[in-house]
């Protein structure tokens, strides 16, 4: 279906079902139950899942296929956000032109940075992109204040022109982002018994865009172009002596992944129309690297999994506090309970980044293929056990 083989179609369908049913899947616990804090099915968080999913999918096209490790991709996300907000300020509150402009501008920006950075490879490339990103951050933070509004960040105001829209609504407030009148913030709440499921317009827009982005990335992975990118990673020398010019291939991959980042940035601004320089900081670039690696670089589904995983646990871990822990471990004797809470305490709440760092190191050390590889290993192990169970009674030979 859609020009994909069966396996890829199945994967696309799985992702489609997961994203479209996310309001149900992420809200498994009744609203007033003790476990409700593990629900993640509210619009704000779900939007973040898919937006970072798009960001990571794009990053994976560059890193997963060509092996070029960019440490500056957040710059494109930031540029996308700024472009979108400017569109809201100048043109209208419709998200379509804003997202389009975000993609185009970040693509151009990626073309510029990629053209320069790709003249080097390996560690030099990583450091060049890092330098560019940090430079962009500094530009946005202070130098280009007229465009970016510096520290405060770019926001909508009541005197923005918005030539195709209104500067202010009838009641004198700033208009909200919309898709041809459908407000991004509008949310339909469905109450089923003790559960409350929220369906948010912005989320569904982002989810459909994620599906399109994911579909496109499958096509790229399976295309001759994608094969060339893998060849670049494998052996550039052979590429050159096979009559292939590696530079436009890597540059195209860089620009495509930059446009994905810009798309994510534009969507972010569409959900909440403001843009700040901190989105461009190199730690933000590090985050998308983490997502891709954690999920499984070079695999199709990995980045989506990684983004969802990190954003979900970021949200959950940040919400757990000592009281919650005491609640969980109250069955233990007092001394032990306090001890366990004491041990876990550094890893929760504000300590989420510590957990993330440790997790990340463990993945790089033990599971370089990320969650996808982990899944495959488990599947293999289960299969192996099954085979063994089937085999043992018949043969009764001692295991070697």
């Amino acid at each position, binding site marked *: 279906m859609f020009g994909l083989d069966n396996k890829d179609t199945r994967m696309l369908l799985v992702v489609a079902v997961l994203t479209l049913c996310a309001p149900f899947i992420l809200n498994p616990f009744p609203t007033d139950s003790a476990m409700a804090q593990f629900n993640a099915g509210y619009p704000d968080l779900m939007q973040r899942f898919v937006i970072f999913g798009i960001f990571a999918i794009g990053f994976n096209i560059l890193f997963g296929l060509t092996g070029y490790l960019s440490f500056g991709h957040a710059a494109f996300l930031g540029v996308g956000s700024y472009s979108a907000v400017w569109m809201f300020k100048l043109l209208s509150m419709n998200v379509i032109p804003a997202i389009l402009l975000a993609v185009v501008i970040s693509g151009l920006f990626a073309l510029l940075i990629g053209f320069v950075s790709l003249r080097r490879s390996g560690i030099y490339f990583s450091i060049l992109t*890092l*330098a560019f990103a940090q430079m962009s951050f*500094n530009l946005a933070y202070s130098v280009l204040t007229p465009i970016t509004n510096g520290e405060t960040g770019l926001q909508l105001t009541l005197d923005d022109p918005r030539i195709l829209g209104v500067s202010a609504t009838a009641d004198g407030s700033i208009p909200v982002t919309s898709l041809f009148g459908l407000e991004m913030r509008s949310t339909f709440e469905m109450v089923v018994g003790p559960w409350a499921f929220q369906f948010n317009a912005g989320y569904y827009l982002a989810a459909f865009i994620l599906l399109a982005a994911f579909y496109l990335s499958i096509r790229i992975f399976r295309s001759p172009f994608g094969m060339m990118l893998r060849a670049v990673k494998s052996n550039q020398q052979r590429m050159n002596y096979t009559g292939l010019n590696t530079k436009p291939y890597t540059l195209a991959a860089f620009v495509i992944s930059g446009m994905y980042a810009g798309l994510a940035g534009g969507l972010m601004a569409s959900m909440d129309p403001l843009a700040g320089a901190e989105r461009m900081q190199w730690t933000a670039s590090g985050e998308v690297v983490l997502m891709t690696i954690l999920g499984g670089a070079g695999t199709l589904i990995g980045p989506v999994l990684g983004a969802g995983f990190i954003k979900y646990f970021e949200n959950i871990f940040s919400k757990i506090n000592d009281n919650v822990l005491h609640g969980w471990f109250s069955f233990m004797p007092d001394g032990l309970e306090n001890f366990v809470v004491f041990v876990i305490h550094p890893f929760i709440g504000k300590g989420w*980044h510590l957990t993330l760092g440790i997790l990340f*190191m463990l993945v790089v050390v033990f599971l370089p293929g990320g969650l996808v590889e982990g899944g495959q290993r488990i599947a293999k192990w289960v299969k192996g056990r099954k085979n063994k169970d089937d085999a043992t009674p018949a043969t009764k030979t001692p295991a070697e």
Partner: protein
Amino acid sequence: MDAILLQILNGLDKGSAYALIALGLTLIFGTLGVVNFAHGALFMIGAFCAVTVQRLLSLSYEVVDESQKDFLGNPLKVKTPYVESWFGPEMGGAIIDWAVPIAILFAIPIMVCVGYVMERGLIKHFYKREHADQILVTFGLAIVLQEVIKYFYGANPIQTPSPEALSGVANVGALLGMDIVYPVWRIVYFFFSVVIIGAIFSFLQFTTFGMVVRAGMADRETVGLLGINIDRRFTIMFGIAAAVAGLAGVMYTPINSPNYHMGMDFLVLSFVVVVVGGMGSLPGAVLAGFLLGILESFASMNEIKSIIPGIDQIIIYVVAIIILLTRPRGLMGRKGVMEE
């Protein structure tokens, strides 16, 4: 003229820090072939060694002083540091005052141990892996170290003053008949870093150990074939690099109050310094460190900022990008290092 000299001086202290961190980075890269994103964290750990030593020295007990009363008429509790009660108020006070220099003594063994554990425990396993993996795992380690420090010391910068005697300003231009007033501690920092850099270079230049390490940097395989255990020496070099970064951190605390993300802040710039100097080139790292430090300070002059606003924020990156594109191996890079 005065202004120019002042800017050069202003660039020296930052340049010294860049040079010291970059020196360790490039040493590790040259010997072990590892790109260490956690090197900035070592700088930060050094700084927090100073904080810890200062706090330990200031540990106090309370005594009730009947002779003094607060405004309610209750006897006042007076805090007395243990150090003062052991060595007498004068000597004890001086020890607390000199906490930062004293921290050097503690930081050296601590940093060597940290470096040793880091190399043996983690980085050792990444020699044969791709550079991307090395970057990633050390990046993860940097996050972990940073968060651990944040957990214990909080997110706010911690003021760590220099000894009173070295905290003022001096007119360094007096000798030249000019009027340049400059903080004493920054001069101390500069000379301190010169001493450290000198020590490292002489160590590598004049000892057999250093000779083997240099030979190993040039051609690891051949040296290995001679039956010399190069790995053990490289591990020791890692410890030394960690100590250098740590000391740079210790001494930097009075200039910039340490916070948990100072390592990351310096790391990006130090990497730029290493690349500009030439990956694996020790003199290159030192040269580029001072050069970029001074350049940054010049760019922050008002006269220059009025021509190109904000240039001070981006000058280092612009220079780095230009140098990398025109001289791919950096200012003093050797051929064959990190090339495809």
